[in-house]
């Protein structure tokens, strides 16, 4: 028949009462006239009968469950897992948005980022720290630094005075006629130059610490050496001995001695 194929497809729906009235009528009419489709219907009914045969088994399984106890057991299990009760709706909504499991990877990434960031920050900014500690050794009070400078100036001055003293002593004791020779000699001229250079270094120090007396003496020594080094060659015997006498008159060596003593005593 023409519409057997379509009819067969409807047989199952028909058996399960899923056909509309008009469809049902159409099918019934067809079945009356079509043994083939009736046979097919019979087959379908066998299947349904077979399926029905399982009902007893299902009923037995259903009866074996304690339906009174199950809800409380399930509720217990569910609420134990989901312990915290939902809060006020709006708060719940917000927290649900922020704590939804979809966002978990984002939070994990954020956490990793923060940890990594702080680690890098730690690494980068940690390095200068020890340096600061080292520098801290030099971070001393101004007073202490000044004292150190003062002490250094004092020692320099002392050295200067001592060297000058020896040189002057040598000069005074040397015969006046050999003064030119004396001043031109390698050793003495080097010594004198060293003394002059040293003077250049200590004079600002002496100014700074207002050691006027020491400065005056040191200046005198400087001029004296300067002159002697420069002009000793042209000086006559008389002039040399005059200078020697002058040094003795002015008691330069004594002054040097006294000043040295003073400086030694004023040790910081």
């Amino acid at each position, binding site marked *: 028949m023409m519409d057997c194929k379509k009819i067969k497809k409807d047989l199952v729906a028909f058996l399960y009462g899923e056909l509309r009235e008009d469809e049902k009528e159409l099918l*019934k009419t067809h079945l009356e006239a079509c043994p083939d489709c009736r046979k097919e*219907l019979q087959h379908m009914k066998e*299947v349904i009968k077979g399926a029905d045969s399982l*009902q007893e*088994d*299902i009923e037995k399984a259903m009866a074996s*469950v304690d339906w009174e106890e199950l809800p409380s*057991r*399930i509720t217990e299990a*569910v609420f134990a897992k989901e312990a915290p009760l939902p809060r006020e709706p709006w708060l719940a909504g917000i927290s649900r948005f922020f704590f939804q499991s979809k966002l978990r990877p984002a939070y994990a990434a954020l956490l990793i980022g923060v940890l990594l960031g702080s680690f890098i920050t730690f690494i980068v900014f940690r390095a200068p720290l020890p340096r600061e500690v080292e520098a801290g050794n030099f971070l001393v009070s101004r007073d202490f630094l000044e004292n150190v400078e003062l002490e250094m100036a004092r020692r320099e001055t002392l050295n200067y005075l001592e060297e000058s003293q020896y040189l002057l002593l040598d000069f005074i004791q040397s015969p006046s006629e050999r003064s030119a020779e004396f001043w031109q000699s390698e050793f003495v001229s080097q010594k004198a130059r060293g003394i002059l250079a040293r003077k250049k270094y200590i004079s600002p120090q002496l100014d700074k610490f207002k050691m006027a007396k020491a400065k005056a003496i040191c200046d005198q020594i400087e001029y004296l050496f300067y002159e002697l080094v420069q002009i000793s060659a042209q000086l006559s015997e008389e002039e040399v001995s005059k200078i020697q006498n002058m040094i003795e008159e002015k008691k330069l060596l004594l002054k040097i001695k006294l000043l040295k003593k003073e400086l030694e005593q004023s040790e910081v």
Partner: protein
Amino acid sequence: MKEPVSVLFLRESPEKFKMEEKREVEHEDVYILVDKIKEGDREAFMTLTRLYQKKVFLLAYSFFRNREDALDIVQETFLRFYEKVRMFQRGKNFQNWFLQIAKNLCVDYYRKNYSKSKEWDRSKPIDEMNLPDQSSYDPLGSSDLREIISACLKKLAEKQRMIFVMRHYNQFKYREIAQILDISLGTAKSLHFKAVRNLRGLMAPYLGRQL
């Protein structure tokens, strides 16, 4: 020889196996229950469990034919339901939405736990089916219709089986099945037809011998 057609049509309706909670719960009542559950109401949750536990069990049991698996599915369904309850909106059909959870769990569970054993026990019955004459050695041959249909149901494709079980044992209408499975009405109808036709094909060798 020609049977009256009306006799063929009359199939005893599977009324004998109806839910205890036959009276349909009014939608509004369910919505109120769900609203309470959203606020964490334990009593409401328990009430809802009482209303739907058997439907889920029936679905899972007829699908798996295993009591323990079915009970697992029931518990898991309510757990999943509680996790998802805030996503449910008024206006939806609650039962269909709820059973969708159960159905998804059944399918997942089946794929996880049954697909391998299915392959395994599929290979054996096929060998046995090739020897229909030795009825005394055939475990299916001597058994009654119950065992035949049970074995054949297991061989049905997953979706066809689900639809057959839903229509036959849970007695859901095509319309409901379509909603639960998220398919069209026409698809539900044709899948059901295919399920029955395939069952018939699988049962044929045994039925033929029985007759």
